């Protein structure tokens, strides 16, 4: 019942907004997302820490094709649902000052996207997963193309074509798997227990991987991303970087690792080499970015590259690290885009060179920004540390050379992040930052919530790691077994 409530609450709120065209759209959306968070927390409290799927709901949908509306959560799903529910209030709130045209539609679409995301993270049926995967795209497409920046049409178009193309391969993969099931079923358990030979696994692996690689994005499939992050409305940039990226990583957990373990063994090295290349490549490019959002976009590609390398290293550290880093990265992305938006509101620019000296005008704001940066550069006692540490350890266990190269991210990350911080926040004030005002009490409270979570996860990582541990061990054991066999 909880899973269904989580799915339906944003959906119903969205429908209500679409029908009523309420002038209170902002407030309604915010209340809905906060209510959703409350439900998610209730789920977390009720959750029993084992590998089973809980909060199960199962309705027959298209029985002839083995398609059920079957949803539920294990630890992995729960953490991502929690992440979505925690971040959505911020994603909604950040646009409050925008006063968009047709606000009711804007917020309704955000809520629809949330519903779709919850669907992706809780689906226990391959077809349903695909359905939600595509369903998230629709509101995001409209949001970006209607409320985006100047180049929105071309940029969104590219993103859309690219990602739909990827999903097409995934659909082929699902259909192939479906045909292999005895009696024909899209049920997750049925699809996961399909026994394929090495070659067939290779084909399925690549079909899924292309879809996920474009969405994450893994180098060199990333070119849609910086433009899209720069041109989209801030809520969409957050939605994409914090949550939609995680759909793809989650997809690797759910489909690639359990269904094609032999192919992971065969092709994992290719993927990891691509991912590690992407870490260094994107980090270097981040160093020379002149725009705050584009810089964070490339930083994000680097971080996602590390997650992708970690998840394919197929060891407990790599998978646990990926899981933890999904949370940290999601929170970090929303946090950074949130403060960048505040800078933009106060100065009218995101060009790093025209900023500077903000610390002397707004010390509280600057401190909060610094804490967010510390989290992204994996400073111990922040959430960023544990994820990155485990990921690097996982990759290092897989290959010392690749692990060592990946570890360079701690140097390059410091270079681009501190460079950005210095140029925008330290030194002398510029023309646009001269009258920069510090955070209001309300803004301070909102940002403090993120700060608290950053340190909570940094000091007590086990609270979060333990939730997903049994489920991850579950994924890992068949993988390891097959590899041993």
């Amino acid at each position, binding site marked *: 019942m909880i899973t269904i409530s989580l799915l339906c609450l944003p959906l119903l709120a969205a429908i209500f907004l679409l029908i009523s065209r309420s002038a209170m759209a902002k407030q309604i959306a915010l209340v809905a997302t906060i209510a959703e968070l409350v439900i998610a927390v209730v789920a977390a409290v009720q959750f029993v820490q084992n590998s089973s799927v809980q909060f199960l709901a199962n309705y027959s949908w298209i029985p002839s094709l083995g398609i059920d509306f079957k949803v539920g959560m294990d630890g992995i799903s729960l953490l991502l649902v929690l992440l979505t529910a925690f971040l959505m209030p911020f994603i909604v709130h950040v646009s409050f000052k925008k006063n968009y045209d047709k606000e009711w539609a804007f917020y309704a679409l955000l809520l629809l996207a949330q519903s779709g995301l919850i669907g992706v993270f809780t689906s226990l049926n391959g077809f349903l997963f695909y359905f939600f995967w595509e369903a998230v795209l629709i509101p995001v497409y409209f949001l970006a193309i209607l409320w985006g920046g100047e180049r929105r049409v071309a940029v969104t178009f590219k993103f859309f074509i690219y990602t739909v193309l990827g999903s097409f391969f995934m659909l082929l993969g699902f259909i192939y798997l479906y045909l292999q099931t005895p009696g024909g079923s899209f049920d997750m358990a049925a699809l996961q227990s399909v026994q394929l030979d090495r070659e067939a696994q290779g084909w399925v692996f690549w079909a899924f991987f292309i879809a996920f690689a474009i969405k994450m994005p893994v180098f060199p499939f990333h070119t849609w991303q910086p433009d899209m992050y720069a041109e989209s409305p801030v809520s969409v940039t957050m939605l994409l970087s914090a949550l939609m990226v995680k759909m793809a990583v989650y997809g690797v957990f759910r489909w690639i690792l359990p269904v094609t373990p032999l192919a992971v063994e065969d092709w994992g090295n290719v993927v990891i080499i691509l991912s590690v290349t992407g870490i260094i490549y994107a980090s270097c490019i981040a160093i*020379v970015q002149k725009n705050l959002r584009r810089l964070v976009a490339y930083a994000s590609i680097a971080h996602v590259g590390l997650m992708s390398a970690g998840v394919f290293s197929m060891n407990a550290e790599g998978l646990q690290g990926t899981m933890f880093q999904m949370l940290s990265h999601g929170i970090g992305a929303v946090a950074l885009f949130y403060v960048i938006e505040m800078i933009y509101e106060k100065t009218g620019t995101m060009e790093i060179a025209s900023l500077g000296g903000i610390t002397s005008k707004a010390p509280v704001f600057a401190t909060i920004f610094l804490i967010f940066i510390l989290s992204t550069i994996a400073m111990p006692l922040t959430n960023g540390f544990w994820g990155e540490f485990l990921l690097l350890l996982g990759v290092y266990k897989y290959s010392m050379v690749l692990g060592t190269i990946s570890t360079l991210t701690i140097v390059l990350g410091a270079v681009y992040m501190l460079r950005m911080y210095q140029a925008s926040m330290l030194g002398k004030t510029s023309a646009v930052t001269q009258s920069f005002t510090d955070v209001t009490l309300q803004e301070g409270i909102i940002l403090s919530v993120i700060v608290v979570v950053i340190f909570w996860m940094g000091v007590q990582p086990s609270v979060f790691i333990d939730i997903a541990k049994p489920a991850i061990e579950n994924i890992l054991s068949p993988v390891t077994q097959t590899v041993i066999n």
Partner: protein
Amino acid sequence: MINAAWLIPLLPLVGFLINALGKKWLSKNIVSVVACGSVLGSFVIAAGIFIGLLGGAGAQTLSLGELMNAGGFSVSLSLLIDPLSVLMTLIITGIGFFIHVYSVGYMSHDEGFARYFSYLNLFVFSMLMLVLGANYILMFVGWEGVGFCSYLLIGFWFGDNANNDAAKKAFVMNRIGDVGFLTGIFLIFITFGSIEYAQVFSSAAAMPAGLAVITTITLLLFIGATGKSAQIPLFTWLPDAMAGPTPVSALIHAATMVTAGIYMIVRSNILFTLAPITMEVITYVGVATALLGAFVAITQNDIKKVLAYSTVSQLGYMFVAVGVGAYSTGMFHLITHAFFKALLFLGAGSVIHAMSGEQDIRKMGGLKKDLPVTYLTFLAGVLAIVGLPPFSGFFSKDEILAKVFEHSTVLAVVMVITFMMTAFYIFRMFFLVFFGGFRGSEKQKSHLHESPAVMTAPLIVLAVLAVAGGFINVPETLFGHHALANFLEPVLRPSLAIIFSEEPSHATEYMLMAIAIAGTLVMFAVAYSRYLTKSHVPAASEKEQSFLYRLSSRKGYIDEFYDMIIRKPLDWISSVLNDVFDKNIFDRIVNSVGELVVVGSGVARLLQTGKLGFYLFIMVAGITAMLFFNFMF
């Protein structure tokens, strides 16, 4: 008492939180009391535990349970209370306390008073975690924490981008070292299945010497140490770090943080003992850094730069000591250096304070009249660092020389040369600052004053320590009994069982002492005649300088060299990747594929608009709507 050990790191953390969150509201007095009091509290507890250890209490691990457990990898939240960690704690909180007190005076006019003390307390917390943690992860947590506090404090006056650049440089260079440290930890975990000291060291003790994996682990850890402890090749951040307030230089960049690399090696002594190749590398890096630091210090005209290069050089001494397996000797010099270098930095701060911010020793002179307390205490520091008996530096330096001599005569000769250079640059600075006539402006002259008691009292305490600190480890040659070495013996026992060490004969030791003292006195005479008798003042123009002089004053051109081989190539590669690869190659491939599809769809003209995006969207939306419909009914 030992159960109160958790309070040691906790008190400064609480102090940090109070001052950081309350900085708008708290008065300077409250800020000072909170900041100094929290460190003093930690010191008192540490002293209590120390007395317990002296009384024969054994080492103890205090555990609060598991910090996290991700499959095979787990980290415990525990403190290791043993002679080594307690000794480090005493230095950090003891010297730290006096530097806090001194800062109350030094920073009294700064608007960032509370911010300054919150950073300082955060630093002390991190440094205590570094030395008290019972596993490599907690050491790394502290290690990164002190690096970050160092970043904050170097760039404390953030209005000036020169300070911010120095701060960033320090952080990034340390992170380069951390790549080594981190991968070292990974390899430790892979090799031993744990990162807890207890497991790692007991497994290691059963291993043979010279294993490739242990050599690799120790080399990686040592890379981390070169970053934090400013050794070749990662030392150039430390002189730049002088951009921070002077008490920070004393605490972080002389007495405590920069010795973390030595602590790490001594803590992991069994691993290093099993890796003779690494030990050889450490010895040579240490000797080279000691020599280079002293060479550059000779021509520096900024009082803090002289001391900074001196610190680089003195840290080199410590690495030489641990490199030849004399771990307790390295710790001995770490302690005496903490006393006299903190003293010299605080003395320099008092001078700078009196000179209204002037740091150029060419513009000082004759200050002994106006700053009598600073002068006398500085003199104690000078005699300690050049190593004249019976001042503290004499004992520790002499012990290093004896151990190096055992190892290699050539290196011992290089060390003596370094000692002589040290004596020269120290006396040069001392004479230029305190003797001769005043060379500054009239305005500075009218302003000269001795620092307030809150600053001179710590100077006096540190001076006493710098004078007498050597007596904690007097060698048998001089009728002592190596008290410090005996105290540390339990920590070093596994290594001592392996290292076969022959004590040099008493005659050799007397000879080495005589050489070192004679060398120092010669350099004293040279400096005396050049800077006092002839009243020489270093010239401003480079024209009349010899090649060697310029090599030294330009700091060996190493910053320029690193710019050329690292910074510029990185910028260049980044630009090329951005402008050429990302914008032109990858994106163009993607776009061409896209265009191909668009052209194809244009020909087909299935829909009148001819726009593929719209078409595809309708398709997907249609399918989903259909399925949704199907589901609803």
